[in-house]
């Protein structure tokens, strides 16, 4: 185990006095249930009114922000696109694509920030408005960090252009924090520098540039020492600034909004060709000088410093601790992984950092009532634990309508998750049975290929038939097709209905042999035999002979099987006696009809053979 990276934060459960009461909890995916318990070792628990609520504790609260849904939805599209980037692409084209992806992510963050800002401004006096503006600053910090990571890790700017990127970075982020500093930047990075940067162009090498810059720098220094500007303190101070004098710059600290602004200004005037590897030295000293021991660095400062030190893992770790969402670290880590910057790092938990963070983010999405569809693609792109994670989450999605269930089923079927398909169909079939929708229930169990449940539903159909004397849901039963073979009982139901259809169509001979075969092939359940034999009665009473002698013997054997196997009861009550009475009469009638039919068929068959 590694040690903790900081004190774990304490979440207070409202209404529970943790000094006096105890709490119990249970883990869920992305959530936790907490409630008060009355467990007490010493004496019987005094029934002091405690907290009557069960609380759901969520980890990733930003998932529930209504405005950030745009961030989740749009970044999902970018994420899926990034996974499709062809591996073969190498060198420049691949880098260009990765930089474009990174810019797309940032563009979505900015779009959300803008929207959030509108809400904050419009509602600035209320608590919600304040909440929005704090969200704006979090989003702004996220974009600031992402942008710096993009310059250092993805763009991998070399000495020279590096400062240009950093200038853009500061200009973009300082501008929006404070319009005053925007003006300052506009005037303090005067046109001199614009033309200065235009000068080298592409024709000059870095060394040439360095030489010329050195020359200009010395000239400035000479002017200062000669006291050219001594008459005017403003000009003198300006000259010092141009020379990158720390003290002179810090005199105007109020114009520099923060230490990284100071850092870039300092680099511009003293080290325009700073190498990426030296950045952290300047960054550290700028931070120390700017804070001047008055205040300690904040989380954002630490994150930026870690980036300047090229310590990617530290950046991700600090971000995970500081931010209230998994979105940022999950997407940034994934992108850096595609830049092949994270391969060596394995965790002692989960599989690797990329997967771990993506799955944490995905579980937040699955816990959300509406964003679960996005989580699926994140799981798909986690080769080691993604599938298992998806299997666990997908079964727990509440199925409010069949339409939603179909969408969930589609997700499972596309991934051959047969176990989950079965369980979802079973849930739906159970629901349909409870709602008395037997047809639907049967459809769902056929889709799940769930033979046991199909048998159960078929029994319900048969029971309803026995009670009402007619079939319901004929449109379904008549069109079972090959699905009929799913379970014996379902086959029987289908065939028994076919018997009724044949009988209705007056195909008596076919109907009779079908009826007999249902009993002799043992498809019909024993409990149903009496009904089947009773159904044979009208066929036996037809004018023409339908059952042959052989068939009649078979029927007789079925009847005897049924009556001889009947267990003897001890003390029959009145109801049972009456039932038995009816049964006995039925058997008597059947025997009579069978005997008569046998006689007729023997005569008929005999006379046919004789003639």
């Amino acid at each position, binding site marked *: 185990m590694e040690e903790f990276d900081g004190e774990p934060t304490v979440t207070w459960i409202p209404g529970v006095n943790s000094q006096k009461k105890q709490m119990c909890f249970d883990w869920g995916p992305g959530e936790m249930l907490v409630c008060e318990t009355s467990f007490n070792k010493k004496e019987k628990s005094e029934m002091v009114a405690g907290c009557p609520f069960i609380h759901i504790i969520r980890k990733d609260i930003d998932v529930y922000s*209504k*405005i950030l*849904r*745009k961030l989740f*939805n749009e970044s*999902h*599209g970018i994420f*899926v*696109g990034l996974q499709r980037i062809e591996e073969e692409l190498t060198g420049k084209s691949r880098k260009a694509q990765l930089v474009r992806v990174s*810019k797309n992510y*940032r*563009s979505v963050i*900015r*779009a959300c920030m*803008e*929207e959030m800002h*509108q*809400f904050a401004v*419009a509602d600035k006096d209320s608590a919600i408005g304040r909440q929005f503006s704090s969200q704006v600053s979090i989003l702004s910090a996220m974009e600031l960090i992402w*942008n710096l990571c993009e310059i250092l890790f993805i763009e991998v700017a070399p000495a020279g252009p590096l400062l240009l990127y950093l200038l*853009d970075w500061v200009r*973009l982020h300082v*501008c*929006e924090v404070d319009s005053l500093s925007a003006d300052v930047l506009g005037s303090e990075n005067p046109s001199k520098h614009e033309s200065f940067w235009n000068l080298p162009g592409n024709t000059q090498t870095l060394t040439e540039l360095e030489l010329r810059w050195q020359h200009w720098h010395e000239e400035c220094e000479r002017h200062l020492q000669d006291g050219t500007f001594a008459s005017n303190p403003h000009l003198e101070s300006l000259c010092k600034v141009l020379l990158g004098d720390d003290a002179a710059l810090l005199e105007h600290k109020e114009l520099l909004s923060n230490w990284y602004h100071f850092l870039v200004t300092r680099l511009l005037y003293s080290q325009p060709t700073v190498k990426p590897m030296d950045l952290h030295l300047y960054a550290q000293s700028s931070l120390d000088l700017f804070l001047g021991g008055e205040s300690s660095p904040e989380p954002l400062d630490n994150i930026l410093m870690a980036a300047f030190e090229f310590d990617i893992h530290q950046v991700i770790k600090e971000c995970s601790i500081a931010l209230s969402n998994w979105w940022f670290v999950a997407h940034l880590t994934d992108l850096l992984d595609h830049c092949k910057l994270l391969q060596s790092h394995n965790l002692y938990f989960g599989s690797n950092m990329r997967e771990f963070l993506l799955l944490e983010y995905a579980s937040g999405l699955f816990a959300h*009532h*509406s964003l679960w*569809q*996005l989580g699926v693609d994140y799981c798909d792109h986690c080769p080691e634990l993604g599938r298992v994670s998806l299997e666990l989450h997908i079964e727990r999605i509440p199925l*409010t*309508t*069949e*339409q*939603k269930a*179909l*969408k969930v089923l*589609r997700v499972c079927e*596309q991934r051959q998750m047969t176990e989950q398909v079965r369980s979802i169909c079973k849930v739906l079939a159970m629901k349909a*049975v*409870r*709602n*008395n*929708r*037997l*047809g*639907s229930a049967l*459809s769902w169990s*056929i889709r799940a290929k769930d033979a046991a449940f199909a048998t159960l539903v078929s029994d319900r159909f048969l029971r309803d038939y026995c009670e009402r004397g007619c079939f*319901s*849901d*004929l*449109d*379904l039963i008549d*069109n079972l*097709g*090959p*699905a009929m073979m799913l379970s014996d009982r379902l086959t029987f139901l289908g065939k028994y209905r076919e018997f009724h259809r044949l009988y209705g169509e007056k195909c008596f001979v076919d109907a009779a042999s079908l009826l007999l075969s249902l009993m002799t092939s043992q498809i019909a359940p024993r409990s149903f035999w009496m009904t089947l034999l009773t159904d044979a009665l009208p066929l036996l009473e037809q004018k023409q002979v339908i059952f042959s002698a052989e068939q009649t013997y078979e029927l007789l054997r079925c009847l005897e099987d049924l009556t001889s196997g009947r267990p003897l009861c001890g003390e029959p009550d009145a109801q049972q006696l009456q039932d038995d009475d009816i049964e006995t009469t039925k058997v008597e009638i059947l025997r009579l009809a069978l005997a008569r039919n046998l006689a007729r068929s023997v005569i008929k068959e005999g006379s046919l053979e004789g003639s």
Partner: protein
Amino acid sequence: MYCLGVPIPILQMVLQHKDWHAFALVQSRLDEEGRRIFAFGAGLFVPALPTEENWLSAATVPHKKISKTRWRPLPPGSLQTAETFATGSWDNEENYVSMWSIGDFGNLDSDGGFEGDHQLLCSIKHHGDVMDLQFLDQERIVAASSTGCVTIFLHHPNNQTLSASQQWTAAHYHTGPGSPSCSNAPCTGVVCNNPEIVTVGEDGRINLFRADHKEAVRTIDNADSSTLHAVTFLRTPEILTVNSIGQLKIWDFRQQRNEPTQILSLTGDRVPLHCVDRHPNQQHVVATGGQDGMLSIWDVRQGTMPVSLLKAHEAEMWEVHFHPSNPDHLFTCSEDGSLWHWDASTDGPEKSSLFHQGGRNSTFLSHTISNQANVHQSLISSWLSTDPAKDRIEITSLLPNRTLSVNSLDVLGPCLVCGTDAEAIYVTRQLFS
């Protein structure tokens, strides 16, 4: 491609991806320099987000998954193009029915002029998922809810508000075994023919309402043993329903018997049918979409099986629509995130070459005219004819990169609107360019 039935139509299908610019998105967003950037082409992208002008109403309408999109019908004889549509949302804690305007495409200025052009006009909270949405007339819209409730919303264009004007609670419900209490069943489909409203649901029930009656005019309990997924009018007293075991049933409200007058079905596999639409001019021609993404064309006058089965999407086809005034064109959308345009009018190379000449507007005009002429000339629908040499369906995929399900679409004139689970609404005003 699969074909059933004796005459086997051999349809050559060309699946091509429409040029990105032909249906480009218009998005405004800040770039990394902090500037507002616009990307636009012939189409118009309306992101499901509130705009500056109407953020107040937008505050109560957060981002949500779109289940239905419908154009508001134009007044008869109007020469305008569609500009107002309604959307419904699903799978949120709070769902809404909303009205949107796409405004005039002509007057966009160079700097941020789009902001006012796609705007949310108004929204109203809707209890449960919006399962279906249909305009009754220009002001009234009927919403079907997953709670089994059917509501008529009235749109007041003067002050841009929506209000519930009439409601049938528990229009669809289950009766549990042995208990008299009933639980609500989702209402899955609704179709309107002012003043009549027909609804179907997971309870297999068909209701016929009249906009001015409090009670249902006619109810067919247990009309279907499985879930009814969609309904449409065939001829006025006759309706068509599709169900989850691949059957298409025709019901006649003039008959007192609660039995369908005709049952047509896919053979064998009992693949659920999710959507149905009737040809606007030839009422016997019907198109349905199934769970396997297959498009079936039926001739309800003959046979009990589809005339042709066309392999289409990779997952559930959620909606199918014939173009109301240009019925050689058909549009489908699917769970697999695709939106397709089926064109059965291209029957010769000389005709298609005509379309690709000239400016966009004139192209569209000539297209419309030639197609209407075509309809009048041939009595046989291009969807039913079986001449392999002549017939050719050209399929164009309209959305560039598919992600999540396209749940709904609607076409009116040259305009198409569709809504997705990725919480986006796409609109194009130049379908035939």
